[in-house]
């Protein structure tokens, strides 16, 4: 007599796999919803939507000085010298190379990104989606816009009960030579702020957004000028979509988070 298939027991590897798949699907849908929120906020702030290619040329990252600060391996590098971009804004710089920024303005786009993170832990993914708002124009305007975006996103995170904290930060630059100098300048001039939220415990926080001033660092490398011939100032606001979704799910539970987003529960 044929035995009926064994029913997976709670806690079995099979049940864990099913639960993980459902959670992954839930996180992905939440990330999509969050992206639609950030896109709407960007559009309301006057940002122009850009579309970006799936991969970026290694030569673009070389032009950006990426390897001077982050000499580690790239993700998804192809034989013809392309890879996943470490951040969405590199695509924008590639598109705008040599441009004259006639008026201070903003752009928004979303890309699948890849990074070989030095540290491991929840939310540190090798591939992830990042929406960004890119700011370009006068230094004063870019700085003011960053300030407005910080207030806007803190309020948004608070509306989701995420208990956000805005903290000065610096990139995990390779800490030798000029890259160390860039890190110290970034810290000294408060060029980078991170929005951090508690993840599972109050002591463990996860950075879910960053607010960055690039001054004219990238403008010099991609030849971006203002109408008066001076270097453009640039900056960016970045949203790690899976990190936002993970934080929201950890705070509310996946079902409540999905209900908040107007999605069906898993």
């Amino acid at each position, binding site marked *: 007599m044929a035995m009926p298939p064994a029913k997976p027991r709670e806690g079995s590897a099979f049940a864990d796999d099913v639960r993980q798949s459902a959670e992954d699907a839930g996180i992905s849908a939440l990330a999509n919803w969050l992206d639609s929120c950030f896109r709407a906020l960007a559009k309301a702030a006057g940002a122009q939507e850009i579309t970006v290619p799936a991969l970026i040329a290694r030569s673009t990252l070389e032009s950006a000085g990426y390897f001077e600060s982050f000499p580690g391996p790239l993700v998804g590098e192809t034989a013809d010298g392309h890879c996943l971009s470490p951040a969405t804004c590199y695509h924008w710089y590639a598109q705008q190379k040599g441009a004259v920024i006639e008026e201070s303005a903003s752009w928004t786009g979303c890309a699948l990104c890849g990074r070989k993170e030095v540290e491991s832990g929840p939310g540190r993914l090798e591939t992830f989606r990042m929406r960004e708002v890119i700011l370009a124009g006068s230094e004063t305007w870019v700085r003011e816009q960053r300030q407005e975006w910080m207030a806007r996103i803190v309020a948004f995170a608070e509306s989701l009960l995420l208990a956000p904290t805005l903290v000065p930060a610096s990139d995990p630059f390779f800490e030798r030579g000029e890259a160390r*100098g860039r890190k*110290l*300048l970034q810290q*000294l*001039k408060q060029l980078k702020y991170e929005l951090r939220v508690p993840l599972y415990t109050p002591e463990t926080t996860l950075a879910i957004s960053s607010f960055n001033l690039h001054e004219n660092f990238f403008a010099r490398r991609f030849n971006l000028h203002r109408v008066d011939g001076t270097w453009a100032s640039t900056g960016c606001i970045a949203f790690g979509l899976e990190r936002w979704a993970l934080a929201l799910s950890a705070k509310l539970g996946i079902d409540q988070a999905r209900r908040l987003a107007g999605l069906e529960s898993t």
Partner: protein
Amino acid sequence: MRDKPAELLAYINGELLSGKGVQAASDTRLFEDGWIDSLSILKLIAFIERMTGQEIPDEQVVMENFQSVNQIAHRFGLA
């Protein structure tokens, strides 16, 4: 013999700002106009460390301590 703040100012003007067409005074905000770049800040820190004989931890490299020659001198005991 120059006092230490004057020595620091002379180093900044003679070494770090040389060829840039600008000269700092003791109360000039060194970092707000982009005068000090990522290489210069490392040289500046190394120079202060040599003057004081003490290492400056990265967490002390903040605007409150480095805004001007006067503030650097005050914070790191050169005044």
